[in-house]
Protein backbone atom coordinates (compact mmCIF):
# COMPACT_ATOMS: atom_id res chain seq x y z
CA UNK A 1 0.00 0.00 0.00
CA UNK A 2 1.35 3.39 -0.98
CA UNK A 3 2.23 5.80 1.73
CA UNK A 4 -0.03 8.79 2.14
CA UNK A 5 1.00 11.61 -0.09
CA UNK A 6 1.97 14.84 1.60
CA UNK A 7 1.99 18.05 -0.34
CA UNK A 8 1.71 21.77 0.04
CA UNK A 9 0.76 24.71 -2.06
CA UNK A 10 2.62 27.90 -1.25
CA UNK A 11 0.66 31.12 -1.00
CA UNK A 12 1.64 34.74 -0.82
CA UNK A 13 2.02 35.48 2.86
CA UNK A 14 1.98 38.74 4.80
CA UNK A 15 2.86 42.17 3.43
CA UNK A 16 4.50 43.49 0.26
CA UNK A 17 6.95 45.79 2.03
CA UNK A 18 7.93 47.85 5.04
CA UNK A 19 7.73 51.45 6.12
CA UNK A 20 10.27 53.63 7.89
CA UNK A 21 8.01 55.28 10.47
CA UNK A 22 5.78 52.38 11.50
CA UNK A 23 6.10 48.67 11.92
CA UNK A 24 3.60 47.79 9.26
CA UNK A 25 0.69 45.61 10.31
CA UNK A 26 -1.55 45.57 7.27
CA UNK A 27 -1.92 46.86 3.75
CA UNK A 28 -4.88 47.13 1.45
CA UNK A 29 -4.45 47.97 -2.22
CA UNK A 30 -7.40 48.50 -4.49
CA UNK A 31 -7.47 49.44 -8.14
CA UNK A 32 -10.36 50.78 -10.14
CA UNK A 33 -11.05 52.86 -13.21
CA UNK A 34 -12.19 56.37 -12.40
CA UNK A 35 -13.84 56.47 -15.80
CA UNK A 36 -16.22 53.65 -16.44
CA UNK A 37 -18.43 54.48 -19.38
CA UNK A 38 -21.05 52.02 -20.48
CA UNK A 39 -23.16 52.08 -23.60
CA UNK A 40 -26.39 50.17 -23.61
CA UNK A 41 -28.52 48.97 -26.39
CA UNK A 42 -32.20 49.63 -26.86
CA UNK A 43 -33.09 47.07 -24.20
CA UNK A 44 -30.66 48.39 -21.56
CA UNK A 45 -27.98 45.76 -21.96
CA UNK A 46 -24.37 46.89 -21.86
CA UNK A 47 -22.80 46.44 -25.26
CA UNK A 48 -19.77 48.70 -24.80
CA UNK A 49 -17.65 49.43 -21.77
CA UNK A 50 -14.77 51.88 -21.66
CA UNK A 51 -12.47 51.84 -18.64
CA UNK A 52 -9.91 54.58 -18.26
CA UNK A 53 -7.99 56.69 -15.73
CA UNK A 54 -6.78 53.95 -13.40
CA UNK A 55 -6.83 54.91 -9.75
CA UNK A 56 -4.95 52.97 -7.08
CA UNK A 57 -5.99 53.44 -3.49
CA UNK A 58 -3.81 52.10 -0.69
CA UNK A 59 -4.37 51.90 3.03
CA UNK A 60 -1.38 51.15 5.25
CA UNK A 61 -1.64 50.52 8.98
CA UNK A 62 1.14 50.05 11.48
CA UNK A 63 2.43 50.68 14.95
CA UNK A 64 4.25 54.00 15.22
CA UNK A 65 7.96 53.63 15.92
CA UNK A 66 9.47 55.56 18.82
CA UNK A 67 11.70 57.32 16.31
CA UNK A 68 9.00 57.60 13.66
CA UNK A 69 7.64 60.84 12.23
CA UNK A 70 4.21 60.74 10.70
CA UNK A 71 4.21 62.28 7.22
CA UNK A 72 1.81 65.05 6.28
CA UNK A 73 -1.22 65.11 4.05
CA UNK A 74 -0.09 65.71 0.49
CA UNK A 75 3.29 64.06 1.02
CA UNK A 76 4.38 61.30 -1.31
CA UNK A 77 4.90 57.77 -0.05
CA UNK A 78 6.05 54.78 -2.02
CA UNK A 79 4.88 51.28 -1.22
CA UNK A 80 5.04 48.19 -3.37
CA UNK A 81 6.61 50.33 -6.14
CA UNK A 82 3.53 52.58 -6.16
CA UNK A 83 4.15 56.24 -5.42
CA UNK A 84 0.97 57.64 -3.90
CA UNK A 85 -0.24 60.94 -2.51
CA UNK A 86 -1.22 60.86 1.16
CA UNK A 87 -4.86 61.82 1.45
CA UNK A 88 -5.83 60.74 4.95
CA UNK A 89 -3.96 60.09 8.21
CA UNK A 90 -5.30 58.45 11.34
CA UNK A 91 -3.18 58.40 14.52
CA UNK A 92 -4.85 56.40 17.29
CA UNK A 93 -3.68 55.25 20.70
CA UNK A 94 -4.90 53.68 23.91
CA UNK A 95 -3.63 53.95 27.46
CA UNK A 96 -2.34 50.37 27.47
CA UNK A 97 -1.32 49.79 23.88
CA UNK A 98 0.81 50.95 21.02
CA UNK A 99 -0.07 53.89 18.77
CA UNK A 100 -1.62 52.79 15.49
CA UNK A 101 -1.20 54.94 12.42
CA UNK A 102 -3.24 54.44 9.28
CA UNK A 103 -2.33 56.21 6.05
CA UNK A 104 -4.54 56.32 2.99
CA UNK A 105 -2.94 57.08 -0.36
CA UNK A 106 -4.08 57.55 -3.91
CA UNK A 107 -2.05 57.04 -7.07
CA UNK A 108 -3.49 58.79 -10.11
CA UNK A 109 -2.79 57.44 -13.55
CA UNK A 110 -1.57 60.70 -14.99
CA UNK A 111 0.41 61.88 -11.98
CA UNK A 112 3.82 60.27 -11.81
Amino acid at each position, binding site marked *: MALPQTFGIAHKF*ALYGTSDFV*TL*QSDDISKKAALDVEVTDETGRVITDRLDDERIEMSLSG*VLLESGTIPAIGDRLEYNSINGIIKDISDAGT*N*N*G*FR*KVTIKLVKYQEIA
Partner: protein
Amino acid sequence: MPSPAPSPTSFGIRTITEQSLAAWFATNSDMLPGTTVHIGQTGEIRVVPIVILYADAANGHPELGAKPSGNFELSVKIYVYSSADDADTTELALTAHRERVEAVQAIMQDVDGLKGAWTAGTLYQAWITSDEEGIADRRYGNVLTYSLVAVYPPA
Protein backbone atom coordinates in the same frame (compact mmCIF):
# COMPACT_ATOMS: atom_id res chain seq x y z
CA MET B 1 32.89 18.96 43.31
CA PRO B 2 30.61 20.61 40.77
CA SER B 3 31.96 23.66 39.01
CA PRO B 4 30.18 26.91 39.70
CA ALA B 5 27.51 27.97 37.27
CA PRO B 6 28.83 30.44 34.70
CA SER B 7 27.74 34.02 35.05
CA PRO B 8 25.07 34.81 32.51
CA THR B 9 26.14 37.29 29.84
CA SER B 10 22.68 38.03 28.59
CA PHE B 11 19.24 37.93 30.08
CA GLY B 12 15.79 37.21 28.82
CA ILE B 13 13.03 39.77 29.09
CA ARG B 14 11.63 38.02 32.18
CA THR B 15 14.98 38.26 33.94
CA ILE B 16 15.30 41.93 33.03
CA THR B 17 11.82 42.45 34.44
CA GLU B 18 12.54 40.68 37.70
CA GLN B 19 15.86 42.47 38.20
CA SER B 20 14.30 45.84 37.43
CA LEU B 21 11.46 45.21 39.85
CA ALA B 22 13.96 44.12 42.49
CA ALA B 23 15.95 47.32 41.97
CA TRP B 24 12.82 49.42 42.33
CA PHE B 25 11.73 47.55 45.46
CA ALA B 26 15.25 47.97 46.91
CA THR B 27 14.94 51.72 46.32
CA ASN B 28 11.66 51.67 48.25
CA SER B 29 12.76 49.21 50.94
CA ASP B 30 11.74 51.65 53.68
CA MET B 31 8.12 50.95 52.73
CA LEU B 32 8.57 47.26 53.53
CA PRO B 33 10.54 47.17 56.80
CA GLY B 34 11.66 43.72 57.91
CA THR B 35 10.46 42.15 54.69
CA THR B 36 12.80 40.26 52.41
CA VAL B 37 12.32 40.58 48.66
CA HIS B 38 13.13 37.64 46.41
CA ILE B 39 12.94 37.36 42.65
CA GLY B 40 11.73 34.52 40.48
CA GLN B 41 12.44 30.95 41.27
CA THR B 42 15.55 30.60 43.39
CA GLY B 43 17.11 28.10 45.72
CA GLU B 44 17.34 30.61 48.54
CA ILE B 45 15.86 29.95 51.95
CA ARG B 46 12.73 31.99 52.23
CA VAL B 47 11.55 33.44 55.49
CA VAL B 48 8.27 35.27 56.06
CA PRO B 49 7.37 38.08 55.84
CA ILE B 50 8.42 37.92 52.26
CA VAL B 51 7.70 39.44 48.87
CA ILE B 52 8.45 37.41 45.75
CA LEU B 53 8.67 39.16 42.41
CA TYR B 54 8.05 36.65 39.67
CA ALA B 55 7.72 37.38 35.97
CA ASP B 56 5.97 34.15 35.11
CA ALA B 57 5.25 34.76 31.43
CA ALA B 58 6.35 36.90 28.50
CA ASN B 59 4.51 36.89 25.22
CA GLY B 60 5.30 38.73 22.03
CA HIS B 61 2.96 41.71 21.98
CA PRO B 62 -0.16 40.78 20.00
CA GLU B 63 -0.59 44.27 18.53
CA LEU B 64 2.63 43.80 16.59
CA GLY B 65 1.40 40.66 14.91
CA ALA B 66 4.02 38.23 13.67
CA LYS B 67 6.89 40.69 14.22
CA PRO B 68 6.94 41.64 17.88
CA SER B 69 10.48 43.06 17.41
CA GLY B 70 11.50 42.46 20.99
CA ASN B 71 8.30 43.92 22.43
CA PHE B 72 6.64 41.81 25.09
CA GLU B 73 3.57 41.78 27.23
CA LEU B 74 4.60 40.34 30.57
CA SER B 75 2.63 38.77 33.33
CA VAL B 76 4.17 39.50 36.72
CA LYS B 77 2.99 37.88 39.90
CA ILE B 78 3.97 39.42 43.20
CA TYR B 79 3.50 37.13 46.14
CA VAL B 80 3.23 38.61 49.62
CA TYR B 81 3.37 36.17 52.50
CA SER B 82 3.17 36.89 56.22
CA SER B 83 2.95 34.75 59.34
CA ALA B 84 0.04 34.94 61.74
CA ASP B 85 2.64 34.64 64.52
CA ASP B 86 4.57 37.76 63.58
CA ALA B 87 2.52 39.96 65.92
CA ASP B 88 1.01 39.75 69.39
CA THR B 89 -2.36 38.84 67.95
CA THR B 90 -3.48 37.39 64.64
CA GLU B 91 -5.54 40.52 64.05
CA LEU B 92 -2.41 42.66 64.30
CA ALA B 93 -0.53 40.23 62.07
CA LEU B 94 -3.29 40.40 59.48
CA THR B 95 -3.26 44.18 59.63
CA ALA B 96 0.51 44.21 59.13
CA HIS B 97 0.12 41.81 56.21
CA ARG B 98 -2.47 44.02 54.53
CA GLU B 99 -0.23 47.03 55.06
CA ARG B 100 2.53 45.13 53.24
CA VAL B 101 0.19 44.39 50.37
CA GLU B 102 -0.80 48.04 50.24
CA ALA B 103 2.87 49.07 50.27
CA VAL B 104 3.61 46.71 47.38
CA GLN B 105 0.74 48.22 45.41
CA ALA B 106 2.01 51.73 46.21
CA ILE B 107 5.51 50.83 44.97
CA MET B 108 4.09 49.37 41.77
CA GLN B 109 1.77 52.32 41.27
CA ASP B 110 4.73 54.66 40.72
CA VAL B 111 5.18 53.59 37.13
CA ASP B 112 7.47 56.50 36.32
CA GLY B 113 9.78 55.40 39.14
CA LEU B 114 9.67 51.84 37.90
CA LYS B 115 10.50 53.03 34.39
CA GLY B 116 13.51 54.86 35.82
CA ALA B 117 14.68 51.71 37.59
CA TRP B 118 14.40 49.59 34.43
CA THR B 119 17.79 47.99 33.88
CA ALA B 120 17.78 47.21 30.14
CA GLY B 121 15.53 48.33 27.32
CA THR B 122 12.35 50.26 28.03
CA LEU B 123 9.28 49.72 30.14
CA TYR B 124 6.25 51.23 28.44
CA GLN B 125 3.58 50.68 31.03
CA ALA B 126 2.56 48.58 34.05
CA TRP B 127 -0.85 48.07 35.55
CA ILE B 128 -2.50 45.83 38.12
CA THR B 129 -4.93 43.22 36.90
CA SER B 130 -5.82 41.34 40.08
CA ASP B 131 -5.28 41.02 43.82
CA GLU B 132 -6.18 37.71 45.42
CA GLU B 133 -5.98 37.04 49.12
CA GLY B 134 -5.78 33.69 50.86
CA ILE B 135 -4.80 31.92 54.03
CA ALA B 136 -3.04 28.60 54.55
CA ASP B 137 -2.06 27.12 57.92
CA ARG B 138 -0.78 30.15 59.84
CA ARG B 139 0.24 32.17 56.82
CA TYR B 140 -1.48 35.01 55.08
CA GLY B 141 -0.82 35.38 51.42
CA ASN B 142 -1.73 37.67 48.55
CA VAL B 143 -1.02 37.27 44.88
CA LEU B 144 -0.94 40.53 42.96
CA THR B 145 -0.91 40.17 39.21
CA TYR B 146 0.41 42.89 36.93
CA SER B 147 0.62 43.32 33.20
CA LEU B 148 3.71 45.04 31.85
CA VAL B 149 4.70 45.97 28.34
CA ALA B 150 8.42 46.27 27.70
CA VAL B 151 10.99 46.10 24.95
CA TYR B 152 14.55 44.85 24.74
CA PRO B 153 17.29 47.43 24.23
CA PRO B 154 18.23 48.09 20.61
CA ALA B 155 20.91 45.93 19.05
